[in-house]
């Protein structure tokens, strides 16, 4: 089974702090994603990466950056956390291509509270 592991389940940070959310997948997938989930808004894509050191903005990239130095690891960075970034963050990796399942696999989520 594919396993996507998010290092922190619950975090509380102060406004202005730099925050790192780490994600590791064990299935050698090329594509990884960071989503943000808020009530009534569903999942919104922040950034995705289709290869090491490659990244592209999703629908709501403002206030975030990402890092992918190794294939299995994709980090989300909040350079200066703000209260409106209080949310649940979901990391995912993608099994795609011809003959594959075209399926996204999710981690268990990281609840971030910014005070």
């Amino acid at each position, binding site marked *: 089974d594919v396993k996507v592991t998010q290092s922190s389940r619950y975090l509380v940070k102060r406004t202005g702090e730099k925050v790192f959310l780490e994600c590791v997948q064990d299935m050698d997938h090329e594509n990884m994603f960071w989503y943000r989930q808020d009530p009534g808004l569903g999942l919104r894509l922040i950034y995705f990466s289709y290869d090491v050191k490659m990244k592209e903005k999703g629908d709501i990239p403002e206030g975030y950056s990402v890092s992918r130095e190794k294939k299995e690891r994709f980090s989300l960075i909040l350079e200066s956390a703000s209260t409106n970034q209080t949310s649940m963050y979901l990391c995912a990796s993608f099994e795609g291509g011809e003959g594959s399942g075209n*399926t996204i696999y*999710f*981690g268990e*989520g990281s609840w971030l509270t910014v005070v």
Partner: protein
Amino acid sequence: AQSVTQLDSQVPVFEEAPVELRCNYSSSVSVYLFWYVQYPNQGLQLLLKYLSGSTLVKGINGFEAEFNKSQTSFHLRKPSVHISDTAEYFCAVSRGYQKVTFGTGTKLQVIP
């Protein structure tokens, strides 16, 4: 552009009753369709998917969904729900990994 509409934000249903969670999508090209389930305080888990072939798709935990191209729908059904089915369900449409769009979710509340 593609979009997904889940018409019901919450669906209460009595235990052992049938349930249907509605999903409509819009896209100008062929798409893949998915249903994911999210239990409290957990990530999303794939319930079932439609890539091609038979329009009736069976998933885990007794759920199934039917792809209706003419109505651009992919409704999720279960003939008899259990308390453990209480969760939030997300419909998603994809044209490939860069174009995955999720609906806003439907909370299924199973009443004993």
